[in-house]
């Protein structure tokens, strides 16, 4: 109750900085329950402070523990929120099902809202001069060459290029493509640049 359980959540977040773990619904529920227990104890003791003045210090200690639990819960959520944000920029607006199941429903809700907010912003870019928006998630790496050679590591089916040509992205095929059009597929791990 004095921060031990909640620290396990925090340590879990710290251990796996590069990935997202399953949302720990159970532990969060338990911590919130503990907070209610602490709160009730405090309400009882606060009412008895008129008889026993030294109980007031005990109430203060429990209050510190309540604040600590609250802080840790919020930090855990906030830390995951930032990782989920990265998912939008790396996986795109549609998450693969095995990634989606790592998020709680509330988190997925936040992800959708984040995606919508981002889309609205991107669409507004250049609207005063007749542009229909820029996709910021496309141009994340500095361009070095116009064309690059890539290897397809998993089947992706037909892919249409900007000039109208259609290519078949089958596993283990090699292609020579415009760098700007491959960026997203490389980021998603479907294509690999051959150096």
């Amino acid at each position, binding site marked *: 109750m*004095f*921060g031990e359980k909640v*620290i396990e959540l*925090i*340590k879990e*977040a*710290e251990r796996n900085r*590069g*990935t*997202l773990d399953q949302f720990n619904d159970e532990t969060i529920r338990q911590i919130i329950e503990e907070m209610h227990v602490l709160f009730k104890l405090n309400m009882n*003791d606060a009412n008895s402070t008129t008889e*026993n003045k*030294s*109980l007031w*210090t*005990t109430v*203060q*200690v429990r209050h*510190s*523990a309540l*604040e*600590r639990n609250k*802080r*840790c819960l*919020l*930090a855990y959520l*906030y*830390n995951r929120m930032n*990782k989920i944000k*990265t*998912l939008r*920029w*790396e*996986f795109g607006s549609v998450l693969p099902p*095995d*990634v989606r199941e790592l998020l709680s429903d509330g988190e997925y809700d936040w992800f959708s809202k984040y995606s919508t907010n981002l889309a609205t912003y991107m669409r507004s870019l250049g609207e005063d001069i007749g542009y229909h928006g820029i996709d910021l998630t496309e141009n994340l*790496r*500095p361009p*070095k*060459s116009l064309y*690059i050679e890539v290897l397809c590591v998993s089947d992706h089916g037909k892919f249409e290029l900007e000039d109208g040509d259609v290519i078949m992205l089958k596993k283990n095929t090699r292609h020579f493509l415009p*760098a700007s059009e*491959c*960026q997203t597929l*490389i*980021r*998603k*791990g479907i294509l*690999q*640049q051959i*150096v």
Partner: protein
Amino acid sequence: MANYLSITDILVTNEKVPCKFLHDLPKMGFMDPSATEDDLKAGTNVEIPIWLAESLHARRPPLVSVELPKIYKETYREILNADACTVDMHKLGQYFYELGCYIAKYDIKGEVATTLIDTFKQRFRMILSASVSTDSITALQPLSTSERDRTAGAVVTEKALSGWLKRGDCPLTTATMVANHRKRKRAEMEML
């Protein structure tokens, strides 16, 4: 650094410091592992996490007085001032610097602060000169958490720079979280 939502700060403030309770605390006897009663008596010495110590110290009147943990006391300070580079920082304190910043507030003489700055300077020079080659890095004395992060950052930068100098371009790569996610899935599949 010390912001409310920082995971690192939460872990740092979880570290324990020796304190003396200045008042009776009914029903809080569980905080002292050697206590036999339900109530905590004034004058008891207990090690509590610094988040609790700060909170109780800040009350008016203060409920605890905070003492320096032994790694920030004179004996250890002398070792660090002599040669901080040979110290196993991982063993001494994972969050040596960060915790030290909190502790320094309770050191009226300001000697902890001086030692922290000095230790940091000594070890920073050591880490910086080692980060140019992978051999030197592995030969370093064990590091604290923040030192490890900084070293990893230096290694990445060094690699990127030499890659850029040699090749003149940066190949596009799979996004970090995507790659990590796949690695974990593969590892999980192998365990089944």
